[in-house]
């Protein structure tokens, strides 16, 4: 066994060992709690994945940290809320949230970010300014009170008669499905379509892609739209589960940041891994050690940074 292999085994043992011991203990102690927490964690991870995948997509292609991502999430949620209230159609709200955020993202990209291509720091500062402005305009329009969206009728109420767990919210389960569908869609888009090929090529070498005759600006615009739209989509989904108040934007922004830092910036697979880790850490932390749930997240962040500064799936640039 080579040294690298041994180190890898050691790392797995160090990380996996305590988790396995905890899992066995928790399973014997209270099987139901453990499994329900697992489901909660995975569904939360699914929401995180939807939001963070947009973030990482934009970053991967444009090297642009869009710190207004959380505000786009909130924007999508509010627009979805209004549409659902006016029409009563939840699916329409989903589409509306996606579109609103996508259009906002497109405007940001075309009107502002395009003019400072290559100035990463300035672009990031612009998105910070935008996030302040968007958050305040939303606060102005929707006030500071809590908005809660109703789940569509066919997803309301719990699903009963599941072994061990007994009953579980149908809507939360559907979150898991949403996450998987979007994950598969992104995989298909990136690996099986021409646009995806362009995006991947752009991630690897922007200049070459442009030299090959591809309209890079168009690819950027489409990617930014998609990324922003995913934030809005997540906003509508999250509006049912988490409720909307000013402040949620920072929460989701932080979640996205941690997910992509842990998972590796620019990698969709990394976002999925990071989302699962963060979602599970948060929910298990809340269930088993409520006061220290944030510390868990923090410890994970530090551990990953210490051993893999570019994240689990990150590549060196």
């Amino acid at each position, binding site marked *: 066994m080579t040294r690298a292999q041994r180190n890898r085994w050691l790392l797995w043992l160090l990380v996996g060992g305590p988790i396995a011991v905890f899992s066995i203990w928790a399973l014997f102690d209270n099987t139901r709690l453990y499994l329900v927490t697992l489901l909660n964690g995975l569904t939360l991870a699914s929401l995180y994945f939807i939001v963070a995948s947009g973030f990482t997509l934009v970053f991967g292609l444009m090297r642009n940290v869009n710190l207004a991502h959380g505000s786009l999430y909130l924007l999508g949620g509010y627009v979805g809320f209004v549409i659902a209230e006016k029409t009563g159609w939840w699916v329409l709200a989903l589409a509306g949230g996606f579109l609103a955020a996508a259009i906002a993202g497109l405007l940001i990209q075309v009107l502002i970010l395009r003019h400072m291509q290559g100035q990463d720091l300035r672009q*990031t500062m612009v998105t910070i*300014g935008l996030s302040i402005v968007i958050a305040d*305009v939303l606060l102005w329009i929707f006030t500071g009170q809590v908005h809660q969206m109703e789940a569509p009728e066919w997803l309301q109420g719990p699903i009963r008669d599941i072994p061990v767990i007994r009953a579980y919210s149908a809507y939360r389960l559907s979150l898991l499905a949403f996450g998987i569908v979007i994950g598969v869609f992104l995989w298909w888009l990136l690996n099986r379509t021409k646009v995806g090929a362009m995006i991947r090529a752009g991630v690897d070498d922007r200049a070459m892609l442009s030299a090959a005759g591809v309209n890079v600006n168009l690819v950027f615009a489409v990617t930014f739209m998609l990324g922003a739209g995913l934030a809005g989509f997540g906003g509508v989904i999250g509006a049912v589960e988490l409720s909307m108040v000013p402040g949620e934007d920072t929460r989701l922004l932080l979640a996205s940041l941690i997910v992509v830092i842990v998972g590796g910036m620019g990698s969709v697979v990394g976002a999925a891994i990071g989302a699962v880790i963060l979602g599970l850490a948060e929910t298990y932390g809340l269930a088993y050690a409520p006061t220290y749930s*944030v510390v868990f*997240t*923090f410890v994970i962040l530090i551990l990953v940074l210490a051993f893999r500064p570019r994240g689990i799936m990150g590549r060196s640039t």
Partner: protein
Amino acid sequence: MSAARWRRAMSPGATLPAAAAPRPAPAARMPLPAAAPDPYADSGAPRWLKFLWRHLSARHVVVAAFLLVFPFVATPFITFQIAGQALALGLIALSLTFLGGYGGMISLAQLTIGGIAGYAVSILGTSATELSLGWPWWVVIPFALVIATACAALIGWLSVRTEGIYTIMITLAFGVAFYYLALQNYTIFNGFQGFQKVYPPTVLGVDWRSPVPFYFLALACALAGYCFVKWLVRAPFGVALQGIRDNPRRMEALGFHVVAHRVAAYAVAGLMAAVGGILLVWYNGLITPNSVNTGWLINILVIAVLGGMRHPIGAFIGAVVFVLLQTFAIDLIDRERFNLLIGGVFLAIVLFSPDGLLGLWAKLRSRFGPDQVTTSPLRRQA
């Protein structure tokens, strides 16, 4: 820690002139009065007098006189609420200017460092809460500074593993994580309530929280910070730091320890932020998780960028503008819409004058006045 010691520790192979010997300062383009002869050049006058003669110009004297007379002319409200607050905020923003302008690392966690120092003062010192340990102030303050500086070094050590744009993300994550920690932990940080009635001690029979003493306390700290940064960026350590900002690989090839320099920059900036944080807690008289929330983390960046990150004075200009906007937003537009105003101003500055108000000033001067550049040359971040 002196710059000379740093240099010796960092670059054992490099031969550099002794700290006292004159050296070419790359960042220095101080507008020396070309016409005025230097009467102290050959005389046996003390060195500090020579130094003052070389570096002081009329505007320094005017500004100093203004700053000294100001609190006796202005109302206590303006002295305390505007000048005091601006100086405290400016000191924290100065730490960011130092890190960002001279180190090329934009850290959003500077207010978090200040917050850690503030929390340390509240927890170890006296407050209205029973959680406070009630230690005497001359133990508490050094302790708080050491804790905050150590945290800054730790944050720096973790963030310098990444570069440029990643630094913003990671320091933001640290900042928000600390906010949630303070919010959720009741055994140490007292959760949402935080600590009330955290006042400066009464030393030498002076109540340091009344407007004029607080103003001079903040002014002394801010001035010390300003001069310290001015001195440091021309000391070997600062010059090496600017070299690392411009080309880390080349500096590494020259034998400089890049990571150590960067972590040291974080620690130095952390010390300044900690002093500012303690002043801010004394100014507010309380600290709660909301004092270190994302909004405030970003406000420090807004202040630094608003003033301009190319020169240490930018931080204080930005702070004054920020505090004025904050205080008088109520007259311009609705009090509730302050964030919209400051966000809009910030956007406008970033979009139209990336070097902040100082950059705007330099532009105006180059257009209408003689060609004089008072800002440190900084390569555009690619």
